[in-house]
């Protein structure tokens, strides 16, 4: 079984990462895409490592070094939970080669193991990126024994098991419930969205510290407060902390044992229901009772727009991954009403904290909404269907416009609602309210144009799972993160340049956004003259 698991995992890896395509000498475009993705990936990994190290250092400087192990574990687990839950459908369930796999002389457990191993491998990398730098910070600020090193390494190896199985279980429950209904995809999307919003709300409301914790008197007890909070939300973290801080092998044993046992139970239970879940997910209810009525015509642009919108709404992976930005923007703006001014001021130790936040807010919304850049992947998502658009009498620009319009339809209303709420909560005068509302709306023009420009230049139609395009492709990384970072960058400038004249800065940023939009739109129009999409 072990050999078969490894064989399947290796084949899966070659297929998912397209390693054979990369070896082909003629595929220069693939090589370029690979190197670009590698560069972006390395950059993101470095950013995460720096962030984790600085977080560890901050905790140590606050005098709560003993919190670092639990904090690192919970941070890595949260990342895993968030990302794995969104991709279990397509990786563990309802994957394209499911039928081929099930027809081979393999046990269901072998198939689950191999798919799980891939998720575990990727999640281990996530753990490494968070826990390695935090471990370094811990070593720097506390006196560790030799036993610390093997405990920390074992911790990193075991850490992905629990959150990966929890996330996969939640994913399985969602698809299991959804598979009972006719519109299983739509229901799966709705349930996942509810869960996602729930997690975000809990992290804003329940996960945050009580306001009293920020007062000077209570700073001394901050370590205990955070420790309690972490232990309550993730009991395994307590054993890990005890293992690291007190070099307790018993606690390490409980941590490892619980994680491995939980993983074993998960595999056993899932193996019993695996075929049933997949059958339900991969078959569609049919009614065969259609009666033709008068059909109505629409313009090619409207027809393409409707088709594109249905494409977006029909895919849970697409909605959840690309829609997360707009959801975050709405949740943030609602949560803002539950945070007091004092707490905000205490979080930003500057003289003009409130004014600074007021100026940064429009760009925070831009950054979040920018993550919902559907246009960055919509062309690639045509996949095997691309022959339809290529053989139909449609100008490529009409196709691009339809994809940009769908993106705009998703981000414009949410950006408006989010910025309106934030302006009600934070704007101190009319001009401030105007900026908070208008800048995200203007940035909404840039997002689809940016995404389309990226996808035109980096598209590829040869993919097996749409997760590979939505989550793991170079165009998704550059498109979604790029538009998020570009939108957020003025806020970073404001944060670090305290002497900045905001009244001059804001209009300049607006002009830059508009200019960039115009330039990229012209480039898209020029690309459309090539006739082939």
């Amino acid at each position, binding site marked *: 079984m072990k050999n078969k698991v490894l064989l399947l995992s290796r084949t899966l890896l070659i297929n998912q990462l397209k390693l054979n395509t990369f070896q082909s000498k003629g595929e220069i475009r693939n090589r370029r895409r690979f190197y670009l993705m590698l560069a972006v990936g390395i950059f993101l990994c470095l950013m995460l490592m720096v962030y984790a190290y600085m977080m560890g250092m901050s905790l140590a400087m606050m005098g709560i070094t003993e919190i670092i192990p639990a904090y690192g574990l919970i941070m890595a687990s949260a990342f895993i939970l968030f990302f794995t839950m969104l991709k279990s459908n397509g990786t563990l369930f309802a994957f394209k080669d499911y039928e081929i796999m099930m027809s081979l002389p393999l046990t269901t457990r072998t198939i689950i193991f191999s798919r799980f191993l891939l998720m575990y491998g990727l999640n281990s990398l996530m753990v490494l990126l968070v826990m390695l730098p935090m471990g370094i910070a811990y070593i720097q600020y506390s006196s560790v024994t030799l036993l610390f090193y093997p405990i920390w390494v074992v911790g990193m190896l075991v850490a992905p098991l629990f959150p990966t199985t929890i996330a996969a279980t939640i994913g399985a429950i969602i698809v299991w419930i959804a598979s009972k209904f006719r519109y299983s995809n739509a229901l799966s999307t709705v349930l996942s969205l509810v869960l996602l919003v729930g997690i975000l709300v809990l992290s804003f409301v329940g996960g945050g510290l009580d306001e009293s914790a920020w007062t000077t008197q209570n700073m001394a007890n901050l370590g205990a407060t955070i420790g309690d909070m972490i232990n309550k939300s993730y009991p395994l973290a307590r054993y890990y902390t005890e293992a690291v801080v007190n070099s307790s092998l018993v606690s390490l044993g409980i941590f490892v044992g619980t994680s491995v046992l939980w993983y074993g139970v998960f595999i056993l239970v899932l193996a019993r229901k695996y075929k049933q879940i997949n059958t339900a997910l991969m078959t569609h209810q049919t009614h065969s009772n259609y009666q033709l009525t*008068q059909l109505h*015509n629409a313009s090619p642009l409207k027809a*393409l727009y409707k088709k594109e919108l249905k494409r977006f709404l029909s895919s849970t992976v697409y909605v959840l991954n690309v829609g997360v930005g707009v959801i975050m923007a709405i949740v943030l703006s609602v949560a803002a009403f539950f945070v007091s001014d004092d707490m905000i001021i205490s979080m930003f130790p500057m003289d003009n904290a409130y004014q600074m936040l007021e100026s940064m807010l429009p760009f925070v919304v831009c950054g979040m909404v920018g993550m919902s850049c559907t246009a960055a992947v919509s062309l690639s998502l045509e996949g095997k269907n691309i022959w339809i658009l290529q053989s139909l009498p449609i100008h490529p620009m009409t196709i691009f416009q339809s994809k940009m319009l769908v993106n705009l339809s998703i981000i414009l209303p949410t950006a408006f609602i989010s910025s309106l709420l934030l302006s009600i909560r934070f704007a101190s005068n009319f001009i401030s309210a105007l900026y908070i509302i208008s800048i995200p709306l203007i940035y909404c023009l840039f997002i689809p144009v940016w995404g389309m420009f990226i996808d035109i230049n980096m598209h590829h139609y040869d993919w097996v799972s749409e997760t590979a395009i939505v989550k793991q492709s170079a165009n998704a990384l550059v498109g979604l993160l790029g538009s998020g970072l570009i939108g957020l960058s003025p806020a970073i400038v404001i944060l670090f340049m305290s002497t900045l004249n905001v009244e001059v800065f804001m209009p300049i940023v607006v002009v830059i956004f508009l200019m960039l939009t115009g330039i990229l739109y012209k480039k898209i129009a020029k690309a459309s003259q090539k006739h082939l999409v």
Partner: protein
Amino acid sequence: MLTITNFSKTYKGGKKAVDNLSLTVESGDILGFIGHNGAGKSTTIKSVVGILDFEEGEIKINDISIKEQPIKAKQMMAYIPDNPDLYEHLTGIQYLNFIADIFGVDSKERTLRIESYAEDFEIMKDLGDLIASYSHGMKQKVAIIAALIHRPKLLILDEPFVGLDPKAAITLKNAMRELCAQGSAVFFSTHVLEVAEKLCNKIAIIKSGHLMANGPTQELIKDSSLEALFMEVANEK
């Protein structure tokens, strides 16, 4: 209706899939394009319908170049690929309506045509279901109806009979004949030599990217059969 002149297509890496091919399909013709796997049939077809770009030669549909005026040229034709990957998130009727919108077919006309073809192909009751739930043959039927919905001047099909049930295959043949009787032309690739011999008034045989035989079916096969002619061409060095 379709004129291919000195057409060549070389893929990345230097492989010449089609070499200096010239072919004409007149109005009213049903031309069967025959060749073994990898002979260059699909490459030629995909270049004709505007999916593949090409550097050498000229392809014109009703005197309109697919390279110079692709939108105008595509407006006159319809294409059905060998493996119809349709939009699985749409229902059959939504897909047909989408295609009709792109070709600007009047709402009354499209309703009548869909009704007629869907009844002929016995798929009317399934049109309200998602394409994702369709079998290969059902997808093929929807692709055929979508191709016929705007009454194309040139119908291009790549292996159209694969996956179709016998009745649907007969219906398709009748639709092809009917279209040609109205002045359109049909250009299709096939491996089924019996079908080509009975259905096509013209035959073209391609081997390793070269056109080996081309002309009226009866003139080419004479007293023999298409199978014998094909084997003769296949064994030629």
